[in-house]
């Protein structure tokens, strides 16, 4: 189990880095898909099979494939070269690096989370999630429909041609 955890984590980190460093948009998307699949692996390790499946279906299957189509249809699959001055690059790298170190320092000294919610192995299953969504988190679940409908309206507005 521990071995799997480290393996999946390593895959995720490497893929995430490749997403950033790769210059071809199609490769970017594919690395991101790999990253998501590794994340789904983590869900399974936590006994959250339902979440893992949903994650793969939604993110990997729907969203990222759509991305891939768009990139191919618009013929964007050329390497992109960013022109940025050295100063910008160096300062960005330095800031990012320090940021990483600081966050690491902050979270490294974590502490025992008190056992208010003991680990419930059913929580990631369909029934557990369903109870949470339609129980305690009913309002957020319902109200997020407003979020989606406004996003849909936006997509329609931007997508439709004005005659």
């Amino acid at each position, binding site marked *: 189990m521990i071995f799997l955890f480290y393996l999946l984590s390593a895959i995720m980190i490497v893929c995430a880095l490749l997403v950033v460093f790769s210059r071809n948009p199609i490769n970017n998307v594919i690395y991101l898909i790999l990253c998501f699949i590794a994340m789904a692996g983590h869900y399974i390790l936590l006994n959250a099979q339902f979440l893992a499946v949903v994650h793969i279906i939604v993110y990997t299957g729907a969203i990222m494939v759509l991305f891939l189509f768009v990139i191919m249809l618009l013929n964007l699959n050329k390497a992109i070269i960013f022109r940025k001055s050295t100063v910008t690059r160096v300062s960005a790298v330095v800031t990012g690096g320090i940021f990483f170190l600081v966050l690491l320092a902050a979270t490294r*000294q974590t502490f025992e989370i*008190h056992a*208010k919610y003991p680990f419930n192995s059913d929580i990631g299953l369909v029934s557990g999630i369903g109870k949470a969504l339609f129980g305690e988190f*009913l*309002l957020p679940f319902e109200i997020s429909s*407003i979020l989606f*409908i*406004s996003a849909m309206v*936006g997509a329609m507005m*931007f997508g439709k041609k004005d005659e």
Partner: protein
Amino acid sequence: MSALIFIAIFGIIVLYLGFANNKAILAPAAIGGLLITMALSIKDWGVGSKYFHDMIVVDNFSIAFNVSMLIITILIFLFGVNYYKRMEHHVAEQYALMIFALTGAFLMTSYSNLIMLFLGIEILSIPLYILAGGKKSSYRSNEASFKYFLLGSFSTAFFLFGIALVYGASSTFYLPEINTYIAQFNGHLPPMLMVGLLFILIGVSFKVAVAPFHFWSPDVYEGAPTLVTAFMATVVKTAGFAAFYRLLGMGLLPLPAALEKTLWVMTGLSLLVGNLAALKQSNFKRLLAYSAIVHTGFMLLAMLSQHDSAGSVLLYYTFVYSLATIPLFIIFIHMKRSAKGLEDLVIFRGLYKQKPWVAVFMTILLMSLAGLPPTSGFMAKYQVFTLAISQGYIAITIFAIVMAIIGVYYYFYVLREAFTDSDEPNPILIPFLNAALIVVCGIAVVLLGLFTFTIPI
């Protein structure tokens, strides 16, 4: 609670009204719906109850802010009657998106759970990203939309990360529980919790454009359609501050000393950066964006004073600020149209010559923004300063007063243009409804200054 449910459904109804292919019914219908929402909100006054596993709290604070935002939105919809006359498509969507954004704003005033705050901010933001890009043919509008979206997602990421860290430390999303959890450390918080809280504060700061997280606002204010800019400058700011106050004033204050100092630094920076940049602006919308940043600084000052009446002062401040801002945008859009699309300050030239009464009301409105007596803007600033002083924050108050005085300069600069004659006067047309709005808001700005209200919240 019924108000929240009603407005969420009502947005969809307005969307469907678009099928009627009759633009004339949209604004009256939308305003009618908002009035019903207002009635439903006021009905709950004084009850104070929690709903849905304590996800949201409907108390006097949230009702007062909701009603204030409803009034402002109604004014903006009235402005929209003429504004959208020339627009052919998607008018119903524009109204619906604003109502959706208002739904998000409602969540921001009444959350007691960080998840609800996050959803509120997102429901408010996504329609705004779309509205900012509402002028599809305009390059600047597209740019504004994209920039707002990109920077907004960035801040959302930080905000979510902050929530995750806080949850990781305290294993709860509920503000009261987080509050008691923090209290047990006596000010010496573990680093993870500190960073988490900081990220949450930064996420909210971004929404209300506190320096140094203000960079998006001038560009977006400038590029977005004027009506949307007015909406952002008023309703979004009010909602942001209501959320901020619920987070701090009713939740986390007194913060650990370091976090509080951080917020003081942001306050000072907002006042300074906003003012300095505004001094050099020649574009009216950018000028108002920077002035909004300065006003943010004043509101932060009120909030950080940690006085019991800070909520009431904030309500008053945001309301009178919004009342003064909307008619200024209305005047601006008509001047812009008469100047064939220019947005520089020079377009105000000749206003006094052609429409002296508009210039007089503009004087009142700008005086209110500048905080000069006898307008309500003065009373608002005055209350903020007395609050801060009464709690002993003297140095920062004096700094804020100095900044307020510097601010008078650029407001008067606009005014001076309005009272200057134009070399090539273009006819200025102001339709009756908009003229009435300018007059009503102008009078309200003065009356609210003479008879200041305090709502017990």
